[in-house]
């Protein structure tokens, strides 16, 4: 008899365990979520990306300037969250690329008598990859992909090992010497969570940069995705960038 009783008690306890776990998971964190909702931003409702229309960029560098001002990026020309590259393809097939001070002061005219086949500007920034190698390699999880698809760095958690900088194929990361932690473009997270545009998009005089929702049915980015043939940088690395380029030249890496 005693054994039956014990068995019954045991089975009851076994049943209680998952029940309480379910209850906890349903009720427990509810107040936490409620607090988040009060702030008015629900990361789950967004999935961000950026479109860049290469043929519209005039290389004025306002984006790089605005980014530095908005995000308190060091002024020295070794730290950029976004920058502009100029490609010049000569008649003989030679390609030169430059980005003096990240293109922040624009570009001086090319001093050459050689025949130029084509020339264009390419704005660069963190690609906020869907399969980000930087996030994969971070030993402590200080860099992560948020629910809305933005790749961020927790500078209070980063140990400064710089593995993420090595792992980024696009040179989009740097070590901020002030905090000794990794830093990069956040799509101006402090702005976009308030419904504003990233600073670089805001100031672009030609609307070469299109920021918005990747998944929403009606968004400027969605429209660009419908109308243009979009490509990404280094697609063979399977990083699945969310920065999409239209009219991207094959010389761009």
């Amino acid at each position, binding site marked *: 008899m005693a054994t039956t009783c014990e068995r019954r008690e045991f089975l009851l306890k076994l049943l209680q365990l998952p029940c309480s776990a379910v209850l906890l998971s349903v009720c427990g964190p509810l107040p936490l979520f409620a607090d988040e909702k009060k702030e008015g931003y629900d990361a789950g409702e967004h999935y961000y990306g950026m479109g860049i229309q290469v043929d519209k960029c005039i290389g004025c560098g306002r984006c790089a300037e605005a980014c530095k001002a908005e995000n308190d990026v060091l002024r020295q020309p*070794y730290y950029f969250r976004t920058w502009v590259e100029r490609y010049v393809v000569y008649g003989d097939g030679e390609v030169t690329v*430059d980005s003096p001070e990240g293109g922040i002061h624009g570009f001086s005219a090319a001093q050459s008598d050689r025949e130029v086949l084509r020339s264009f500007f390419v704005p660069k920034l963190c690609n906020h990859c869907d399969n980000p190698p930087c996030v*994969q390699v971070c030993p*402590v999880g200080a860099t992560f992909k948020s629910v809305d698809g933005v790749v961020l760095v927790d500078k209070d958690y*980063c140990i400064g090992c710089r593995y993420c*900088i090595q792992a980024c194929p696009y*040179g989009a990361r740097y*070590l901020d010497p002030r905090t000794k932690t990794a830093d990069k473009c956040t799509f101006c997270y402090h702005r976009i969570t308030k419904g504003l545009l990233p600073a670089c998009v805001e100031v672009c005089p030609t609307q070469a940069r299109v920021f918005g929702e990747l998944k929403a049915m009606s968004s400027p980015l969605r429209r660009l995705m419908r109308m243009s043939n979009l490509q990404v940088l280094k697609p063979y690395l399977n990083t699945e960038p969310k920065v999409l380029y239209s009219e991207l030249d094959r010389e761009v890496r």
Partner: protein
Amino acid sequence: MDELFKQLAESLSQVSGFIYPNEAELHWALLIVIYPYITGLVAGAFILASLEKVFKVKEVEPTYRLAMLTALAFLIVAPMPLLAHLGHPERSFEIFLTPHFKSAMAMFGFVYAWYLMVVLLLEIWFEYRADVVKWSESQKGWRGLAYRLISLGSSDISPKAVAFDQKAVHTITLIGIPSAFLLHGYVGFIFGSVKANPWWSSVLMPIVFLCSAIVSGIALVLLLYYFTTLVRRKTPEMSCLDKLASFLLYALIVDLSLETLDFIHRLYESEESIKILSELIFSKLFLSLTIVQILLGTIGPILLLAITRFSRLPEELKRVGYFIAALLVQVGIFSTRWNVVIGGQLFSKSLRGLTVYKMQLVGAEGLLTGIGFLILPFLILFLLVKLLPPWQESRSS
């Protein structure tokens, strides 16, 4: 910070071609060269030590305990350059507390702890236990106390207990060999798995690392064995040196073959990066790769070892030959690490330009710090040898 900006401005002025603006700073410098060099020595020394225990190579027996202590001394130092290199060393414990399991680097702490605690310390303890018990009885003062502490309260030195010790050492060595492979293969994986970097990204990287680790470990134990016997005014056992030289020669040949395979494979596949990598090899890395690593550090010792080992030279001359070959191997393997770590950062990921690395003399990542980290294991080894003499004549049994 001003100093850093000045350095970066200077580096930028020496860039050829185009680099991404954020690439002006070279992120993994001298200390990260030293880290794989040191772990390689640990793994190599341990694998050599295991030859005697598992594969019963009796000739290398005189080096067994020395090799184990060498591995321990270097393993103690191994994480130090990493720690010194971190932007926030005080947060390094987060790797243990909240490891990101998808990160290759997050496993470092666990691989390291496993190797230190389970393999090296345990094996050394069992190997020395009987001697330590006897020393604790015969020695007085702080030395006696130290031995009593090390013995962890064990006092049984009956033949049965000693036989158990030997069995334990054998078992730990069996676990230790794959662990040593793991330790250094893993370091190779940290580099080999970075797909963004064509100079690093190679499936062969862990294997090449491992092979060069074995080479450097054997060479180091050979140097230490030769040096310590001379200091103690003894004659090194020629059969031991011959065996070490043979193993060093074979390991070097395998290492060179793998490196050549890697080279030919890259050349034959001729991927997008081949142009910039060729430029790198023939300009920035010409001295450290072609001259130091390949000619001086690999082909030179192979020829020297082959000639000295298999010719009828007087013993004294043979020993000098082995010694020089082992020294050259150390220089070669150090430059191997240099060429991997620094070489992999001297070209832009845009594959359109080369940058430079200017080593500083002082400072956290400076030359002096680096030399300090290279000398420290020898100081620790000196203390270990004083405490746990590895010489055959010191054995109490």
